């Protein structure tokens, strides 16, 4: 699916509207985030703590999952385990069918996107309605999110106004954001009130208390998890934290990194279904824990760091590639730098196309990651696993990027660059004949499409150093 990054990038780059939308949005998000972390010492200490909390939870993951499950069950939450997205979809469908549910109202959940849950439910006669405004908009448009935090960031208000006019009864065309928001509120209120179940993700699962922590700005997360009689949450197994106390530093990192907010409007801590005597809240709460390749990522000590991710999206906001091409170009549920390392690991390198190479390794993502994921190092590791897999390959599809020609080129490169005598002869030759290589030669052709041909100097630095009398040792 992701094999076509270059083709989609071509289309995206030639869409000035899309480029302008992303550029403006990313610039705004970078500025807002920077304002939140002006105190560099505090930022450094805070992210070190955030990284340690996640690493610590991962180090104890199987134990914490069991502890969480035990507490959650005691709290009245039903816990399910799914090895694959197909399993997770089946579990969700079974729960809904058992309740005779026909309509599900959804809070924003990237795991449900990973599952392609909506399509699965529709195929079985259950309507899934997205309630996050951005998700609602792209659902109307029949599209996938282009950003993990701001799913419709690729659309401008003109496009949204038209979508609303086309899809909402008696909705006049207006680009007034308050009016558009009010229209969505009205439609979605009715959907909430008539939904048989609510579905959400979770940002953190607290082992100590068996609680789900869910953050959001709109209130749709609260509604989805409170108004319908049934609440189903889906979450990756990496969402565990050890203590409730661990949530505080992570909350100090997540919204500030994501949207430059000190905190989201709502932080929900959900610990049990409606208790006897309470007037509202779902009568049942189910949690589906999804693996879908995460345990394989976990098996490698270096790659495991990928699982620290708290899905803030700062990496994509700061990525010079993402901000040029937008989220859809990646052809994967998770776009941007985190998508470039997560997708090849979850789906397999054989299914991820050129994603690991769609990066200049500029480290802008690494600089802002609130949990210090070494994204660039992991990208290089994935390139290595694709080209020359290690003895016991940790990644599905390892070796799928192997090319005999490319390997031969690098062998040839080594023969020249690891041998001083060969290097001297080779560079001398290049400085004499290099400029005769035509601009249309392979590789140079791509380079010279927007740049002039680099000029080989008449003398190498090796020669100049000798001539100027610089010592050799």
């Amino acid at each position: 699916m992701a094999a076509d990054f270059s083709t989609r990038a071509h289309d995206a780059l030639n869409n000035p509207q899309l480029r302008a939308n992303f550029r403006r949005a990313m610039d705004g998000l970078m500025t807002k985030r920077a304002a939140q972390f002006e105190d560099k010492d505090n930022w450094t200490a805070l992210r070190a703590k955030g990284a340690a909390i996640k690493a610590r939870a991962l180090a104890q993951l199987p134990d914490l999952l069991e502890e969480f499950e035990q507490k959650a069950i005691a709290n009245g939450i039903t816990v399910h385990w799914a090895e694959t997205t197909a399993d997770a979809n089946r579990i969700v469908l079974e729960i809904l069918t058992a309740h005779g549910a026909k309509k599900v109202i959804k809070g924003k959940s990237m795991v449900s996107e990973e599952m392609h849950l909506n399509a699965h439910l529709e195929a079985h006669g259950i309507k899934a309605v997205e309630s996050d405004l951005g998700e609602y908009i792209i659902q109307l448009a029949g599209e996938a999110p282009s950003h993990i935090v701001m799913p419709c960031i690729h659309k401008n208000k003109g496009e949204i106004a038209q979508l609303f006019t086309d899809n909402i009864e008696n909705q006049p065309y207006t680009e007034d954001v308050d009016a558009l928001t009010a229209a969505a509120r009205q439609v979605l209120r009715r959907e909430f009130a008539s939904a048989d179940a609510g579905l959400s993700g979770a940002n953190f699962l607290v082992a100590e208390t068996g609680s789900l922590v869910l953050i959001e700005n709109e209130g749709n997360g609260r509604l989805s998890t409170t108004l319908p009689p049934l609440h189903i949450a889906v979450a990756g197994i990496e969402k565990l934290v050890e203590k409730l106390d661990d949530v505080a530093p992570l909350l100090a990192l997540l919204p500030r990194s994501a949207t430059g907010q000190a905190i989201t409007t709502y932080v929900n801590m959900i610990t049990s279904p409606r208790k006897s005597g309470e007037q509202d809240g779902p009568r049942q709460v189910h949690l589906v824990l999804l693996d879908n390749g995460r345990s394989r990522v976990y098996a490698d000590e270096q790659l495991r760091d990928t699982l620290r991710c708290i899905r803030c999206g700062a990496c994509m906001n700061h990525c010079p590639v993402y901000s040029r091409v937008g989220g859809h170009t990646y052809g994967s549920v998770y776009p941007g730098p985190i998508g470039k390392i997560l997708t090849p690991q979850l789906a397999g390198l054989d299914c991820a196309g050129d994603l690991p190479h769609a990066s200049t390794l500029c480290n802008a993502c690494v600089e802002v990651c609130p949990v210090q994921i070494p994204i660039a190092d992991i990208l290089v590791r994935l390139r290595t696993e694709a080209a020359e897999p290690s003895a016991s390959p940790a990644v599905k599809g390892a070796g799928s990027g192997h090319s005999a020609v490319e390997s031969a080129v690098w062998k040839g490169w080594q023969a020249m660059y690891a041998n001083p005598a060969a290097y001297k002869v080779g560079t001398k030759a290049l400085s004499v004949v290099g400029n005769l290589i035509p601009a249309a030669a392979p590789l140079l052709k791509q380079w010279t499409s927007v740049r002039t041909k680099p000029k080989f100097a008449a003398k190498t630095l090796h020669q100049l150093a000798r001539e100027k009398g610089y010592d050799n040792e």
Partner: protein
Amino acid sequence: MSEARANILARLRAAPQVQPPERPYWQAPSFNDRLDRFRMMIEAVHGEVHVVTEQTWRPHLRKILAEKNVARVLAAPHLGIDWDDVVAYDAPVEDFKDQLVSGIDACVTTTRGAIAETGSLVVVPDVDEPRLASLLPPIHVALLKADDIADNLAQIIEAQGWAAAMPTNLLLISGPSKTADIEQTLAYGVHGPKELIVLVLQ
């Protein structure tokens, strides 16, 4: 199902064991004037703050409700608020849903405290003040005792012993419902209240 559980746990246990790192030192900030910080932060996200006293809050509330042209108010009877049309959320949501969704203009709830650092209210819904009370009506008025404002989240988790007894649902509320999904333009009241008014009792 149990097979999936066993398989997942087995794969995780088969992975290389690493020593869990210690949590390095970092402490959330504290403030000389917590009310001042709270006020600044919540006002920055469109919240409204009124400082009142045990004696003045009811007439003050009345004035606010009148100014906002509120008709029906949702509030727990024990609050004894001074308003003509007050309803209590004293029936299961299944019977109360229609009224909640569109028949109430404002609600008044208590809070468990607040967080100065982020301008957040701690709201713990209970039998008298169910979860949807603070969510569905367009205006949410929250009563907060000034002494209950903590410096930061970690402090209030510790001071109130949350981990030992988590309620069904615990909320941090920082401003009215909002979205910036359309061109990064802020709009309020997308799903929850359009207005959040905090009466701080000093």
